[in-house]
Every structure is written in structure tokens, then in C-alpha cells.
């Protein structure tokens, strides 16, 4: 993976993690907050459109800006201040969660919320208002952001939830459309060890899986189910459920107790570029069968390092290449508890349409946050990976959108590459309020993404 950003401005073909719809833009590496202001001014007078980009882990076109200027924030990677006693860090927006963990874990702190990969920047985590396996307890990332600095064409602003709530919450989950975040102050979560106590068990079918996850709301800090997306009939929704807690010193084997806080060694195997599609239907079925069978029939408790628990996929870098040139999509939706039936319907419809979901994750969400475009709301969320370009996929997902919207659910912008614009207002009823604030922050409409244009999140004039 080429993590080193390009040194100057150059034309790039930018895509999301799914690599299904790339577009060309100019990219400029942001070397400092002052440089960021210069680049914003430059974009305003040249292409007239710009967008912040982090590590490109949004699956669809959220971090693309066709024909515009992509502001590559990765060089803004400094930890500016760390208060090891209170667990508060002030960190630049291009810093990755992985790099931050390396510094905070030895000091006894952890990320308050983390997505399923550590290869995400702080800016990306705030712009998508990411959630983790503890959403039912702790909410989204932004709940732990005390302040952020936002750069817009009209200047820099310090935003906090109390002093500037409209602007703060329009930027949180704002998908980069209010401006560029250069730094944030984040409250961390205390840990006494860097290990996790993980309970693994099988869910025989969807009902059992959902029941166990519901019960885990009260009993566990972290919970998630990996679901076999191709199992049908009585096995539909069979799963491997993992429930986690941060381990205490007493949970560690005696030799480990002397050094309980060990930052992860980061080692990952690379996947070569230009592969044909290797993730095929028979492989998915075989993998799922083996994965399900490998999980213990009775609950098993073990102590793991935090990376294999939170970031199992990071062990293989660029694994998205396994889907070949055409790439893949992730369909992630949430539906309220009253419409838990939709979860089954979605699986059934995908199977009926001949789809082979390669990776499916089911989770519970707790109360929603205050940001108008924040994705999580109470209920069930399912994330489904699907190879792009397969027969019936587009129409099938269109029908699922309708089902989800009718159930007062929504799909996640950070994953989307193909929602229909007509459904956005129904899924995000506070869109209008967000647009008002966004237009105040960026009156000329400089910040725009392919996602925003496709879904008409912002007014668009080329």
C-alpha cells in the first residue's frame, strides 16, 4: 500500500475502497494548516471545487471529487497534544487511527469508538461520524469529539458542540461538504491492558443470532455478528457472534501481567495489484461453511490482542483487490427495532436474486447522535459486501432501498455508491436543516464530492 502521499499536485484516478466507480481529479498533499488555506483559496479560483480526502476507506464515491482538487490530508498526521492523565488528545485530522493507537495504548488509553479498520483518518472518522461494535453503549465517534478546527473558504473556525452546535453537527457526518477538518480534540477511553476478552459463539439461525445480540446489549461492551450471507433455509442468518470487553490485568496470563499495555505490531500481508476477481461464489460458500464450523458450538472465552478483535481484515492490506478490476460494493443499512423483520427480508431477497454476499456483519445500534446526517439510529444494522457488476445487483439493491426507506431506515453514505437521490430525503429527514448550515459555511459551494453530486446533497452547478 502506498501510504506516502504524492509530493505535489498531480492528476489521479481516485476511487473508494470498493474501487467500483473511479473518477479523475487533481490531488494536492496538504503539508500544514496554512498550506491548507492556500490550497482552498487556489481551488476557489481554479476548478471551483475541492474535497478533503483521508485514507480513502469510504467504500463508494464519498472521497472523490471529479474534475476538482482533492486535498490529501494524510501529511497532517501529528499528535499535537496528549494529556495522559485525563485521556484527551489534540490530533491532526490526517493522523490514522492506527498511528494514534500506537501512541495512546501504552499510556492506558483506547479509541472511544473505532470502525472495523484502523486505516482511517481522524478527519474521515469525524466526517462519516463512524460507529463501532460498542454503538449500543457509547454512540458514534463524534460523541467524544470536544472540538475541531474547520477550514472553509471564509476562514478557519473552532467548532464545539456547545458553542457552535449547528456548525459542529453539520461537519460531523458532513462527509467533507462543510470544509476541511485540520485537527480535533478527542476524549479517549481508559484501558488497563491492551488485550480483549472475547467470547465467541455460534448463532444457529437469524432468530438465535438476533436474540443473542439483543441480550448482549446489556451484558457486553462490544458485540457483533458475522453472518453467513449465503446460507439459506433453516440456516439463514447463521452466524458467529463475538462479544468483547477490554481485559483487566487479572484476565492476563501471569507472565503478561508485568507489561499489560503493549501497542500492536503492525504487520500485514500485501495483495498484489491487477488480480482477476478471486472472491467468487464457490469460494464464498466454502469459506463461510468453514468459518461457521470453526466457531465453537458452545461459547468460548479467550484473550486476544486488540487488532485481531477490532481489525481482523487489516491483516491483509489491499484485500479489496481480491474483487478484481470491477471492484465491489458494500450495502449497509439500518432499520428500527419495530422493523427487525426487514433483516430477514433483505437476506431472502438477495438470495432470491442469486447474489452471493461475501462478507456480512450484523450489529445493534443504540440511540442516535445529534448530527443531521449521522447514519446510526436505534435498531439493527447490516453491512453486506457484494461483487460489483453482477447480474440483477443494481435492481435488487434499488428494491432493498425502497424496503429500507419504507421501514424508516437508511443507508450509510460512507459505504454508498449507488443509492437513488429521490430516497435521500426520506432516509435523512434532517437533510434540509443540514443544507442550510452547509450553505452558510460554504456559500460558494466549493466543497463537493461525487457522492454529493450523485445524491444531490448539495446544489450543483459545474
Amino acid at each position, binding site marked *: 500500500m502506498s501510504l506516502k502521499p504524492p509530493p505535489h499536485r498531480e492528476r489521479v484516478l481516485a476511487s473508494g475502497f470498493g474501487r467500483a466507480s473511479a473518477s479523475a481529479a487533481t490531488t494536492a498533499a496538504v503539508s500544514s494548516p496554512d498550506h491548507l488555506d492556500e490550497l482552498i483559496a487556489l481551488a476557489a479560483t481554479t476548478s471551483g471545487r475541492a474535497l478533503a480526502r483521508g485514507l480513502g476507506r469510504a467504500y463508494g*464515491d464519498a472521497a472523490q471529487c471529479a474534475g476538482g482538487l482533492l486535498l490529501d490530508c494524510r501529511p497532517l498526521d501529528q499528535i499535537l497534544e496528549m494529556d495522559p492523565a485525563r485521556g484527551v488528545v489534540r490530533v491532526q485530522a490526517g493522523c490514522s487511527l492506527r498511528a494514534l493507537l500506537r501512541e495512546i495504548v501504552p499510556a492506558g488509553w483506547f479509541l472511544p469508538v473505532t470502525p472495523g479498520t484502523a486505516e482511517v483518518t481522524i478527519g474521515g472518522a469525524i466526517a462519516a461520524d463512524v460507529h463501532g461494535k460498542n454503538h449500543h453503549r457509547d454512540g458514534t465517534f463524534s460523541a467524544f469529539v470536544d472540538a475541531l478546527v474547520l477550514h472553509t473558504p471564509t476562514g478557519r473556525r473552532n467548532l464545539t458542540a456547545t458553542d457552535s452546535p449547528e456548525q459542529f453537527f453539520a461537519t460531523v457526518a458532513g462527509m467533507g461538504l462543510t470544509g476541511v477538518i485540520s485537527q480535533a480534540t478527542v476524549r479517549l477511553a481508559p484501558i488497563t491492558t491492551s488485550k480483549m476478552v472475547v467470547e465467541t459463539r455460534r448463532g444457529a439461525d437469524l432468530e438465535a443470532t438476533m436474540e443473542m445480540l439483543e441480550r448482549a446489549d446489556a451484558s457486553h461492551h462490544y458485540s457483533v455478528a458475522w453472518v453467513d450471507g449465503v446460507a439459506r433455509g433453516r440456516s439463514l442468518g447463521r452466524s458467529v457472534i463475538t462479544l468483547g470487553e477490554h481485559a483487566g490485568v487479572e484476565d492476563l496470563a501471569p507472565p503478561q501481567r508485568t507489561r499489560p499495555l503493549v501497542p500492536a505490531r503492525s504487520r500485514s500481508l500485501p495483495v498484489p495489484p491487477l488480480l482477476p476477481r478471486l472472491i467468487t461464489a464457490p469460494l464464498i460458500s466454502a469459506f463461510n461453511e468453514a468459518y461457521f464450523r470453526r466457531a465453537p458450538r458452545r461459547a468460548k472465552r479467550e484473550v486476544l490482542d486488540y487488532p485481531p478483535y477490532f481489525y481482523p481484515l487489516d491483516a491483509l492490506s489491499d484485500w479489496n483487490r481480491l474483487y478484481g478490476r470491477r471492484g465491489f460494493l458494500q450495502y449497509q443499512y439500518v432499520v428500527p427495532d419495530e422493523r427487525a423483520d426487514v433483516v430477514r427480508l433483505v437476506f431472502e431477497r438477495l438470495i432470491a436474486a442469486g447474489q452471493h454476499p461475501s462478507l456480512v456483519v450484523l450489529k445493534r445500534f443504540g440511540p442516535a447522535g445529534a448530527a443531521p446526517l449521522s447514519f446510526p439510529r436505534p435498531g439493527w444494522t447490516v453491512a453486506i459486501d457484494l461483487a460489483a*457488476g453482477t447480474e440483477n445487483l443494481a435492481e435488487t439493491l434499488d428494491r432493498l432501498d425502497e424496503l429500507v426507506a419504507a421501514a424508516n431506515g437508511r443507508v450509510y453514505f460512507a459505504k454508498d455508491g449507488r443509492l437513488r437521490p429521490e430516497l435521500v430525503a426520506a432516509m435523512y429527514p434532517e437533510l434540509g436543516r443540514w443544507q442550510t448550515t452547509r450553505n452558510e459555511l460554504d456559500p460558494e459551494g466549493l466543497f463537493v464530492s461525487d457522492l454529493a453530486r450523485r445524491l444531490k446533497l448539495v446544489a450543483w452547478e459545474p
Partner: protein
Amino acid sequence: MNDATGMPASAVVLGGDSELAAAVLAKLAKRRLERVVLAGRNEQGLARRCSELSALGVGQVNAVHFDATDHQRHDALASEIASELGDIDLVVMATGALERRGIDELTSAEVAQSIDTNFTGPAAALLGFARVLRSQGHGTLVVFSSLAAVRVRRANFVYGSAKAGLDGFCQGLQDELEHAKSGVRLMIVRPGFVHTKMTTGMRPQPLATEADVVADAVVRGLETGAGAVVVPAALGPLSVLMRLVPRPLWRRLPS
């Protein structure tokens, strides 16, 4: 923007009254299509196609004048259409006219005219649109070549050679667009015999097909990201064979 399933929200058809293009747009209208410009010569035909698209729920539909042989106008047309549509997600090049007359029936002017209609004109127009899409940083070009372009036949060597020229032009343009990291895709469509107004009155060739089948194949090609599609699919292997038949035999094939 084209979405991750390859579906456009806006489209331009060059040769806007084409039956094949109309069949493609009718399918795209069921997906994401909401803005269309039909560019062509025949005002009445264009007007009818416009109302068909409106009836299918496409919100914004307009017709503009386009003559493929009027090369001076092409670049201006591309930018005019771009500013009208906002963003051009898809350009369909459907201009063409079959020419089956041969050595004794055609004047030199008519030969030049046919080649202009089927090759030079479309190629020149395509380049203007390719530039617009490249500066957008995204977009898809779909070009109707023909099975006749795969190997030029005695029976229609003027049309066939012009299509072969266009086909080769598009292959080169594909490589150029890819090399330049343009974000622009080009898909070549090579139909066999299709029942449309272009072929009315002709004796159907083997594996003759309908516009609807071609449209399905084009939409599927947009979804899969194909560089070229042969329709009907059964002609795919045949198009490979066609290249391999020895000349003496090829020459003798019935027209």
C-alpha cells in the same frame, strides 16, 4: 455521475433518432436517467423520441441539431451540451447509415459521404466529447460499431471499412483515455443484424436480433465495465472465427 453500478443520470445521443439508442435510453430511464439531450438531423424524429422519454419519466429532455458531417460544429456542440446538461455522464454515438451499394453504383462523392457519416464524422465528434468528459474527470462513451467492422466483407465494403475505421479509432481512444487517467470509459458495441429502420426491407442475416436485445447487452456492458460487447452474444465466438477465415474462402462467402 455514473453510479457504482455504471448507471448514468444524464446522457447525450449523437444520432438522436436511432432506434438502438432509443432502446438503450428506455432501459436507463428505469434506473437513474433524468436528463437527456438528443442530437440529430431529423427534427420530427427527435421530437417523437423526446416525448417518448418524457413519458418514461425522464425529467429533462431536449433536442439539438447535429449533423455528423458538419465537422466545424462538433467542439462547440460538445461544450454547449455540457453546459446544458451540467454534467455528461454518458455519450451514445449512434450515428450511422448502412451503405450496401458497390463499385458500379456509387459515385466517388457518395463513397466519401458514407465514410464521413460512419467514420470521420462520428470520430471527430467523439473526440470533442471525450475532451469534455476528460475535463469533468468522469463519464462513459458508448459507440455503435458493427459486426461488419470485425472484418470487412465484399457485400458492404464501404460501410464495413468505415465502421472498421471507427472501431480502430475507438480502440486507440480507449487506450489513450486509460493512459491519461482520464476517469473516462469507452465501450464499443458491435451488433450483428438488428431489425431497426436502418435494416428495414433487408433480408435478415443469421442470428438477426431486436433492438431490445441490443439495449440489454449495452446496459449489461455498462454494469460490468466491458470494453466491448458483441450482440447477440452468440456472435461473440463467430466474430473471433471471422478473423481467422482464410481470404480465398472469406471472399467467396455469400453476401
